[in-house]
């Protein structure tokens, strides 16, 4: 019978059927971060369990850790240090690899896993973080879980899961110049909604997907959790193998040859059946921005925000509530809206390619005087690579803060946040109420749109900001 890519990975990892569609699935990699890693490991120990395969478990500092230059274990949140210390000690005790503060490999878990070659095509990887779906960009089955599930995966090397359904999103054609994977992700959210792929494994396919580099694939897969998906995956291809070859935790030598050979068999059979299919043309995508408090409340940059009752997916009350929170009026133009802050960072858009594109827009320019602009590289390697190219100076000269790597103000686990009613244009993934700060108004967009808007001091299309020749 024809199989999907997901079926193939599922079957290769199925240890036992548990009945009624559930199975015991082998987990190849477990990743932890300090927000929940310490809790999980401590809880495991107090229940008398140990970590089954510490050589396949990794931990990093990203969620709570400070990102201001010269950081230590201290955070703005008084108790933040406890999370860092607890995770460090528990990870050491468990014998797992730790990417600690000061380690050049430290960074946001979904940035460093591909960077280090921890995620591999055809592997299963879990992490107590919903954006683990990002890593499906490398052709592995990677998904976000809760803390209890993380404990289970650490103690048993397995998870008990109900087999999810599948959805193929086919993106034909090519994205127009200046349109990014972030715009594509927001476009899909606007089209199918925040529960559009609820519980399903989304396979992204089509010519526009094949043309994306790994960084852009990571951005696209990152936001599958905003669709409610179980996870997202893209079949591995030459782009994938070229990216992973030689990475520190990638297989080496003859093992790498075997891995690539097996990886080439990892695609959905031509006549494979998906539970849902959805298709679109990449040329329909333009730069996008969110207007509300759910990622599905997105629109083409340049369109007016909806009037109450015009949204097909949101109830009139939800639209009123979102507009009220965002300080917007029905049918108001979003372009030209004054911003207070601009944020470049997060597991969605903080890789070196993102920073290069932003630097091209910022070079020789300065952010508007009333705008606080912050750039947080996704990993210490990203930061070091950017600094080696002199990108940090471009950001600093343009009036951006240049930070240490971490999740930072995408949300505010470390205690640093934007202010009430502040309007922030952000390269992140969630525009929920108070996500970036109490009462903060977040507009999600591509890094290019964030950069162009930071310079203009108001929301503008990236096309309005031509790179300096």
């Amino acid at each position: 019978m024809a199989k999907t890519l997901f079926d193939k990975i599922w079957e290769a990892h199925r240890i036992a059927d548990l009945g009624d569609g559930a199975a015991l699935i082998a987990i190849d990699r477990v990743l932890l971060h300090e927000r929940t890693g310490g809790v999980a490991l401590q809880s495991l120990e107090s229940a008398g369990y140990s970590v089954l395969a510490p050589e396949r478990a990794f931990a990093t500092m990203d969620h709570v850790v400070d990102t201001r230059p010269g950081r230590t274990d201290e955070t703005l949140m008084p108790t933040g240090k406890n999370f860092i210390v607890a995770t460090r000690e528990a990870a050491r005790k468990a014998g797992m690899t730790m990417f600690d503060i000061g380690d050049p490999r430290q960074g946001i878990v979904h940035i460093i896993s591909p960077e280090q070659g921890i995620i591999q095509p055809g592997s299963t990887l879990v992490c107590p973080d919903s954006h683990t779906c990002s890593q499906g960009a490398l052709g592995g089955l990677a998904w976000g879980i809760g803390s209890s599930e993380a404990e289970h995966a650490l103690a048993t090397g397995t998870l008990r899961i109900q087999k999810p359904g599948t959805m193929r999103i086919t993106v034909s054609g090519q994205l127009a110049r200046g349109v990014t994977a972030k715009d594509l992700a927001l476009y899909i959210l606007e089209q199918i909604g925040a529960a559009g792929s609820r519980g399903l494994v989304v396979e992204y396919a089509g010519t526009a997907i094949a043309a994306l580099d790994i960084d852009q694939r990571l951005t696209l897969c990152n936001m599958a959790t905003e669709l409610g998906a179980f996870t997202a995956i893209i079949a591995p291809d030459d782009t994938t193998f070229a990216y992973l070859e030689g990475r520190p935790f990638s297989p080496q030598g003859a093992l790498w040859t075997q891995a690539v050979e097996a990886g080439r068999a990892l695609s959905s059979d031509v006549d494979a059946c998906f539970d849902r299919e959805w298709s679109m043309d990449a040329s329909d995508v333009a730069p996008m921005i969110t207007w509300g408090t759910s990622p599905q409340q997105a629109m083409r940059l340049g369109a007016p925000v909806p009037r109450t009752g015009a949204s097909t997916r949101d109830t009139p009350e939800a639209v009123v509530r979102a507009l009220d929170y965002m300080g917007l009026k029905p049918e108001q133009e979003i372009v030209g809206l004054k911003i207070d802050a601009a944020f470049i960072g997060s597991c969605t858009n903080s890789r070196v390619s993102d920073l290069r594109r932003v630097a091209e827009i910022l070079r020789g320019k300065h952010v508007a005087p009333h705008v606080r602009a912050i750039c947080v590289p996704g990993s210490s390697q990203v930061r070091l690579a950017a600094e080696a190219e002199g990108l940090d100076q471009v950001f600093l000269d343009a009036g951006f803060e240049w930070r240490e790597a971490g999740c930072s103000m995408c949300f505010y686990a470390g205690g640093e946040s934007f202010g009430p009613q502040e309007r922030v244009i952000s390269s992140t993934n969630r525009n929920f109420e108070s996500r970036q700060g109490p009462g903060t108004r977040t507009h999600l967009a591509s890094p290019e749109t964030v950069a162009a808007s930071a310079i203009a001091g108001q929301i503008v299309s990236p096309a309005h900001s031509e790179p300096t020749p």
Partner: protein
Amino acid sequence: MTPFTTWTAVAAPLLRDNVDTDAIIPSREIKSVGKTGLEDGLFAGWRYTQIGGREPDPGFVLNQPAYSDAQFLLSGTNFGCGSSREHAAWALADYGFRAVVAPSFNPIFQGNCVRNGIVPVVQPAGVVAQLADEAPDPMTIDLVACKIRASSGATWSFEIGEEARHMLLKGLDAIALTLLRRAEIDTFLAGDRRRRPWIYPGATA
């Protein structure tokens, strides 16, 4: 984990779609390395008059006297979307919630509920609205028969995965259950090391 068989309680209506886990418990309310002490942080952004404050906002459903003993929550589609933080389920459990009834749930949140003894009951929006109409009269969730019964006597069936139902009914520790299969796991791993040696650090081709 407390087993759940049949439970009768007041259900508090919070009929909004896409209630995210940042709303269920804001990041700033997660102050300690642990799974408890989170009840005050539950819905903190909506429950109190000020961010970071503790003065109850009388407009919020849980602050209304009729719902002070609520142990069920009624809500909209895609409940628990966003961050995978299990603190959302811990905070609900800490507060005393034993079930959430909604038209749909985010899958990670749904799993977190089951691991913490909270029953995620899926019902169409129309049924949820009807239950909300009958609140605060107590309703009953019967996980043995998979039935939900309003105080008026109206009854609906619900579906829940057999694995999840079994865990909830017995209040099982999933890790202990899985480790009963340790021999099977070891056999699988031994075979897998031969099939996919590149996955295992230190293996040779």
